Structures are given as structure tokens and as C-alpha cells.
């Protein structure tokens, strides 16, 4: 596409093609050099991602305190199913995932379609406003959400003043409300981020398709489901996979809004892994076993998402 921009006249191609022997060694050399460009990244990603993955797998068959580990076979894996804290963490994380990811993706899609309309006034303002939450750090906004939803927080004050509730709700001490706050928080932080991807993709959609659909009498909702969604399918797949992976790993928000409480009502799998490794008596083996549950979930859910996206063709 942008190749057209180059000034072909400036390049004297035939000169290079004359000496075919030199060219051959040149090509061979270039092939080798190509590997040099990527070698640092290959080494780094192997050391810092793939090697630890293998290590974690081996660790999941070991147990013991701190550095004194010994192989215990499938003991850790068996322990998982009878561990109420793990079950709680898995349940909580699944709830976050099942409610938050669809909610956020639908919202982001709506925003992007509305904000793609060139006739919309204050379009730039709305875009920036909705994207703004993305510039905050997870910890910073979590602390703010914690205060907003505190017993004497501003949300309670607001609801009381408008007579919506008669008594302050202790959001963060209630097992259900605490989860709701965390879901709201993640949605607040990430909707704008996903919206940008959809907005970018919408720029590539040919406007005449919509015109043709309008001529055929399709209304806005039909256009949305029959043109926009199918056109954006690859991006929707991309964002749902990245969001799924992100929400499965949720840590910062839970630690800083509720610290897993009340009880273990908001504890996430990542926080449990952290606790097992660094808060309780360290059991790296069992922590690694729990962490592999996230790995397995990521793989299964990604395959499902690929399948679903593929079938709708």
C-alpha cells in the first residue's frame, strides 16, 4: 500500500542484478543476518517465558517448604480438588470472567459504533473521556475505587442524598457487592482500551456497504449485527482472547480494593498463588500447580473462542 510512496526513479536496480555471483553470496549472507536480528528476542523469551513454564510444570509435582522441595507425584493435583480456598478463588475468577468480559466487549462495541459516526457532535471529547481510564495505573485506580465504594465513600453519600437507599451499603464487606465493585472497576478501566481497537478497525470498513444496506432498508440494529459485528470479527476475537487472559490473571484490583475479602469472597487465582508463595508458609510446588490451572483455562477458553468465531462464518 505505502510502497507506492517510494520514489522508484531514484533506485538503480540493474546495477545490482548484473553481478549474479555477488548477489548469491549476498542473499546467503542476508539470510544469516536475518537470524541475528531476532536472536536476542528468541533467547530472552526462551529464558523468561518458556523455561519458567517448564520449571513451573516440574514444580507442580514437588512439594515442601521454601527451597526444600521433593517430588510427590500427583499429590498437589489431588490437593486442588479438596482445597476450599482454591475452589473459592476459581469460582470468583470464573464469575469475573463470565460477567465482565462480555459486558465490556459489548459496551466497547457500542461506544465505537456511536463514536465512529462523523455527524456526532463532541466526538473527540467523548472518545478521550471514555479512553481516559486507561492512563491510570491498576493500583492507583483500585485505591480510588476502594474509597469511592467505602461505607463513608462518595457513592454511598450520593445514593443516600438522592434517597435511593436509606442506609449506607458496606459494599466491600458484602460478598456479592464486593464482586460487583471489582467487576465495575475492571470494566471502567478497560472498556476504552478495547474501544480503540474497534474504532481503528471501523476505519477500514468500506462506507458504501452501509449505504447499500440502508438502501435495502436495513435499520441501525440490523446494520450493527449484520455488517459491523461480522466485519470486526477478527478484532472481536483478538480482544476477547486478550481480555480473557487478562481477567483470568486479575490481581492488582483484588489486592488493592478488597484484599480478597470478605472471607475469600473476592480472592482471585493469581492472588491465591501469590499468597501460597509469599504470604503463607511458602509452598512453591502447590503454588505452581494452582498456576497451571490458569494455563489450562487460558488454553481451553482460547480454543473455544477460536471455534465460536470460526463457526459463525
Amino acid at each position, binding site marked *: 500500500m505505502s510502497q507506492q510512496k517510494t520514489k522508484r526513479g531514484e533506485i538503480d536496480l540493474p546495477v545490482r542484478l548484473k553481478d549474479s555471483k555477488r548477489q548469491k553470496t549476498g542473499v546467503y549472507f542476508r539470510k544469516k543476518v536475518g537470524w541475528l536480528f531476532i536472536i536476542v528476542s528468541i533467547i530472552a*523469551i526462551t529464558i523468561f517465558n518458556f523455561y519458567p513454564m517448564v520449571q513451573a510444570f516440574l514444580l507442580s509435582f514437588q512439594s515442601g517448604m521454601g527451597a526444600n522441595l521433593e517430588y510427590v507425584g500427583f499429590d498437589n493435583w489431588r490437593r486442588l480438588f479438596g482445597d476450599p480456598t482454591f475452589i473459592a478463588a476459581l469460582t470468583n475468577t470464573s464469575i469475573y470472567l463470565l460477567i465482565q468480559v462480555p459486558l465490556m466487549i459489548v459496551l466497547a462495541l457500542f461506544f465505537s459504533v456511536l463514536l465512529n459516526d462523523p455527524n456526532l457532535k463532541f466526538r473527540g471529547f467523548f472518545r478521550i473521556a471514555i479512553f481516559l481510564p486507561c492512563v491510570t495505573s491498576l493500583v492507583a485506580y483500585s485505591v480510588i475505587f476502594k474509597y469511592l465504594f467505602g461505607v463513608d465513600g462518595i457513592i454511598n453519600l450520593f445514593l443516600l442524598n438522592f434517597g435511593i437507599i436509606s442506609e449506607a451499603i458496606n459494599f466491600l464487606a458484602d460478598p456479592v457487592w464486593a464482586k460487583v465493585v471489582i467487576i465495575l472497576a475492571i470494566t471502567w478501566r478497560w472498556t*476504552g482500551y478495547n474501544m480503540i481497537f474497534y474504532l481503528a478497525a471501523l476505519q477500514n470498513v468500506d462506507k458504501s456497504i452501509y449505504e447499500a444496506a440502508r438502501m435495502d432498508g436495513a435499520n441501525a440494529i440490523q446494520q450493527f449485527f449484520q455488517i459491523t459485528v461480522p466485519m470486526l470479527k477478527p478484532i472481536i476475537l483478538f480482544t476477547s482472547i486478550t481480555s480473557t487472559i487478562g481477567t483470568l490473571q486479575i490481581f492488582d484490583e483484588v489486592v488493592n480494593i478488597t484484599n480478597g475479602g470478605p472471607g475469600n469472597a473476592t480472592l482471585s487465582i493469581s492472588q491465591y498463588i501469590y499468597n501460597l*508463595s509469599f504470604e503463607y508458609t511458602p509452598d512453591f510446588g502447590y503454588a505452581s500447580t494452582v498456576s497451571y490451572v490458569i494455563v489450562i483455562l487460558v488454553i481451553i477458553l482460547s480454543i473455544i473462542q477460536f471455534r465460536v468465531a470460526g463457526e459463525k462464518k
Partner: protein
Amino acid sequence: MKNLKRIFIYTFLSLAAIVSIFPFLWMLVSITNKSVDVTQGRLLPGTHLIENMKTLFATVDIVPALMNSAIIAIISTILTLLFASLAGYGFEIHRSRGKDIVFTVLLLSMMIPFAAIMVPLYRMFGSISETAPLIGIDSLGAVILPTATTAFFIFFFRQNTKMFPKDLVEAGRIDGLSELGVFFRVYMPTMKTTYAAAAIISFMNSWNNYLWPLVILQSPEKRTIPLLISNLGSSYSPDYGVIMSAIVIATLPTALVFFLMQKHFVAGMMGSVKG
């Protein structure tokens, strides 16, 4: 009917904008108010700003934390830009089947949850702490290294390189530039926008990183900004005005970086979505 739809759209968007902006406004107003006023829900600017800042700098080690975060974010961004762009360029310009396979394998690392490799990484850095304290446990180097090049940024650069006019590579070679020379003298200057976008994302990621520094850093003087804020947030008798000031100061760099380079950011995102 059409008007009704319009009213609905504008109400919906305005509500969303208010919800998005409100925490920021509240945060900005709160740094000018006393702690008591913040808890009473005061939404008007007060006169306590200087007082809050004074207390913050007197009671909280925010300057060292800012320094640590800045060092980590800047070094890790520079390394990411260099290594990831080299790789993205290498994969796209020096294309071969072998490299395509390697690329696919590298992409798989994006699927690896950090929690799954956190413990082995911690042990790995622990085992080299004695011999190489600069990159061992409780060192800024250990925070930086795992983020120095990631599959995401390699992917990002490769996608954007698809738009790079490949004739320029030939032109550079004919002008007698070495392969690396082409990269540094032709590719880098042409791809400024992509570098800017990657820089924003990388800087934000590493400035805001929480879990890995929490694991690997131990001594209080090595604390980064997110660790500091998390600590403040969990204190028993919080001074809201002061905590909000710390949060605002911590958010300013990423917000500034983002707004100064917003255009590049969106352009870069688009580049990675295309093709």
C-alpha cells in the same frame, strides 16, 4: 423518532463520559481538600493543596519511589524498543519459512499467564543473586529483564513493518549500507510513529507494573510507585488528601506521555490492527 434516538445517544454517551471522568475529577478536587472534607464528599476545590503536598513529601518517600519507577520504565522502554523492533524487522524484512515458525512459537508466549511463571522466575533470580547482585532479587535489574523484549512488542513491530516501504531497504543496500546500517539509518527514522506508539505502551506498562516488583523487590528504598501507593492505600488511618496527592503525582507521567503522543498512539494501534 429521529430526535428521540439522538437524545438517547447523547444521554448514553454523556453518562459514560461522566462515569469515566468522575474518579479523575474527584481525585483532582481531593488533593486540594483536607482529609475530613474528602470523606464528607466535598466536590469543590479547597485551599489545602500546598499543605497536602508538604505532608506528602515530608512523610512519604515518594521521591525515591518516583526515581525507581522512572529508571525502570525508561531503561525497560529503551530495551523493548531496540530488541522488539530489531526482531519485528528481522521477521518481516528477512522473511523465511523457518522464521515464520519461530515467530508462531514466540507468539505462544503471549498466552502464558504471568502468575504461572512468577515462582520459577523468582527462584531463577534468587539463584543468581549471589553471583550477580545487580540483576538478582531485590534489584531494579531483575524488574527490568523479563520485560526487556516481549512477544507482544515483536508482534506490534512486525505488524507495523508491513506498511514499511521495502524498496527503501534495497535502496539502502545499494547505497552501501550494511544490514544493520539499513535498520538504524533507514528503518528507524521512517518508523518514528510506530516507535512512539510502542514507547507509550511500554512506558505505561512498566510504570504501572505491580505484581512482579511486589514479588522481586524487598527493601523499602527500592519500592516503585505502585508499591508505595498500595501501601498507603492499606494504611489504617488514611489521610485522603495526602494519598490522593500521591496518586495524582504517580498518574501524571503516564497521563502526560499519553496526551502528548496521543496521535501516535492511535496511529500505532491502527497499524497493529491492519493487515
